[in-house]
């Protein structure tokens, strides 16, 4: 089969499906609308996965595939570049959008426009992963952002609308700087594609090169804002905790990580950008630690999860930045990139699982306060849940994020930290792991039995528990378990894609080595200890103070300016 025709499927099939869904919404009766949505998901989300996987042998043999749209010359037409990173990103997105969509069927937002939006989103992410020039990147990032704002505010509650408005103002105004940066680069080099800019930068004088670096920095910081690295992460907590549950799962699972892996391409433009990777690795570790501390101080269950998203993205940024620092063409760099990708994958699974199960629990309890909700199981059984699937799935997610075998979080976190070992990042991330355990013990308490409720409801209600909730939870829980059990095979697949000559493949004995198991035990014990300290009088006072820290709309721009200044310092000094 011709690989060129397959290359466009992840972009055009979802767009086609979205237009089918929207057209049938306007013209067809309700039953046909439902059918068209199922059909749209089938051809827009599932078929691209198959087509992209068919490209796997080409990627291994040729490295990257190029396609010029409309058969223009590469100078004029839009060039798409498909490589192993694009493949992983597209499969990840489409695979994990599915459970969120299934969940949204009963809980909402379940109108046709939601289906159409997530299909367009999948197309945009495919385009982002394949685009080869900076202006296309700008357009795709803006479209991805627009869809995120609509999705967050799709329930039209004022909380959510306000969070979306805040995110939109912040992110759109930062994208103005991105546009300014791309203008500068075009002015200096006369081209927009990554490769040509790289070549043109070699011929610039040192003064012009400095301007070009500032332009690149102006492009990098807005992308880091989307990733929610620590000083730039204010928008995330509101947006991710106030959005509908299915949307939270999508946002935390996929949307915040896609820009990070696009940055791999941007960083390849100039070798001087390597100066940024060390500070970014430290910022990543700090993000992981501070995120966890804030998570521990929250009382709102979904806010707690949102802070954990920040923390876990810190892990990924650390490994990603160290990979770029070593160079992704070298074997150690490639292994770190694989670790970052695998942690992205497992985080997308378990965070989706946690958001959906906690969403179900808080909806049933009609409260989000971790200190007040108790006995979720009996409340859920009132609603018709015969078997505590929600609790079991939550526990799978929680054990996974705490890095306990045999779930996927254990393998990805071990791999990620093992290859960082001599640096201080390893220590910081290990401490953050302790905090993760403590905050999830705190969150798990909502499932503790509550005697008062139990006595009230001996008789089972006749209500039927929505099947789609269970289905989406079970899919994600099984994925978390299976990607844990078959992690070795997944590593081999990734190794084939990213390491051309596997001289020193991933050391597979590290997972169940004595040292690692002891470390896991210590982490859990430390987590229990930290939880006890946090619930003591002094601990809760400190945490209460932390919870009281509030940031204004204007503060965000202050953080933005600080980040640019800090990074430009590291770039030039």
């Amino acid at each position, binding site marked *: 089969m011709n690989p060129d025709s397959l290359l466009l499927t992840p972009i055009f099939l979802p767009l086609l499906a979205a237009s089918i869904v929207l057209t049938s919404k306007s013209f067809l009766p309700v039953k046909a609308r439902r059918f068209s949505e199922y059909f749209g998901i089938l051809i827009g989300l599932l078929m691209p996965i198959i087509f992209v996987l068919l490209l796997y042998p080409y990627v291994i043999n040729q490295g990257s595939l190029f396609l010029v749209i409309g058969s223009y010359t590469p100078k004029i037409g839009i060039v798409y570049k498909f490589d192993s990173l694009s493949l992983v990103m597209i499969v990840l997105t489409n695979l994990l959008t599915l459970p969120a969509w299934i969940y949204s069927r009963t809980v909402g937002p379940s109108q046709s426009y939601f289906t159409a939006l997530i299909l367009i989103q999948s197309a945009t992410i495919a385009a982002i992963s394949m685009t080869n020039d900076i202006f296309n990147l700008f357009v795709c990032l803006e479209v991805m952002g627009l869809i995120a*704002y609509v999705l967050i*505010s799709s329930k*039209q509650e*004022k909380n959510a609308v306000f969070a979306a408005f805040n995110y*939109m103002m912040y992110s759109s*105004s930062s994208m103005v700087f991105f*546009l300014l940066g791309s*203008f500068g680069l*075009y002015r200096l080099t006369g081209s*927009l594609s990554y490769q040509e800019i790289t070549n043109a930068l070699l011929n610039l004088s040192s003064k012009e090169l400095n301007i070009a670096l500032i332009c690149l920095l102006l492009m990098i910081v807005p992308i880091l804002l989307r990733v929610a690295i620590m000083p730039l992460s204010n928008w995330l907590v509101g947006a991710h905790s106030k959005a509908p549950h299915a949307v939270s799962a999508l946002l935390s699972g996929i949307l915040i990580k896609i820009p990070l892996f696009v940055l791999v391409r941007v960083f390849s433009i100039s070798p001087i950008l390597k100066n940024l990777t060390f500070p970014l690795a430290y910022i990543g570790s700090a993000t992981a630690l501070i995120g966890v501390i804030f998570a521990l101080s929250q009382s709102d269950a979904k806010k707690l999860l949102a802070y954990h998203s920040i923390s876990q993205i810190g892990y990924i940024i650390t490994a990603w930045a160290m990979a770029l620092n070593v160079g992704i063409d070298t074997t150690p760099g490639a292994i770190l990139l694989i670790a970052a990708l695998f942690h992205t994958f497992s985080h997308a699974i378990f965070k989706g699982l946690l958001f959906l199960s906690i969403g179900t629990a808080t909806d049933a309890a009609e409260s989000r306060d971790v200190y007040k909700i108790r006995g979720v199981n009996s409340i859920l059984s009132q609603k018709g849940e015969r078997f505590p699937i929600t609790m079991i799935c939550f526990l799978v997610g929680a054990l996974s994020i705490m890095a306990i075998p045999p779930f996927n979080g254990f393998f990805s976190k071990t791999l990620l930290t093992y290859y960082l070992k001599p640096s201080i990042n390893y220590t910081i991330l290990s401490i953050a792991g302790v905090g993760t355990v403590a905050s999830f013990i705190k969150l798990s308490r909502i499932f503790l039995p509550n005697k008062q409720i139990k006595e009230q409801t001996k008789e089972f209600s006749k209500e039927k528990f929505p099947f789609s909730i269970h289905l989406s939870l079970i899919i994600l829980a099984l994925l978390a378990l299976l990607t844990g059990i078959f992690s070795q095979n997944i590593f081999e697949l990734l190794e084939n894609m990213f390491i051309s000559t596997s001289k020193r493949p991933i050391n597979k004995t590290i997972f169940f080595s004595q040292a690692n198991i002891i470390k896991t035990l210590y982490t859990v014990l430390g987590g229990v200890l930290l939880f006890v300290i946090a619930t003591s009088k002094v601990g809760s006072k400190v945490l209460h103070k932390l919870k009281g820290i509030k940031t204004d709309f204007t503060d965000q721009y202050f953080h933005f300016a600080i980040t640019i200044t800090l990074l430009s310092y590291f770039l030039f000094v």
Partner: protein
Amino acid sequence: MIIERVLIFLIFITGFIGLIGVKNIIKKIIGLSLLNSSIVLLFILEASRIGDHAPILVGQEKNIVDPVPQALMLTAIVIGVCVTSLSLAMAVRLYKTTGSLDITIIKERIENES
């Protein structure tokens, strides 16, 4: 040439002040719109410096302006309009539910209720 750049910079600064210094959310949206426009103007201005004629190639036109930034800015303007309209829709929703356009009052009212 320098005067035009200074004017564009002034538009940029005006937009930025509107975005972060003013509390009314409609004015914030106007500020964001101005920010976008200033960058669009900058692109068009700088591209027009290498020629005088519109880049419509019928015969053997010479001395044309750089056509690429114009094409890019067309896309950027479309995105800007999308952002503006969506944010205005949100502003309407916020005004209807909280009864205010001041961002601090909106925030207070939302936090008090939850």
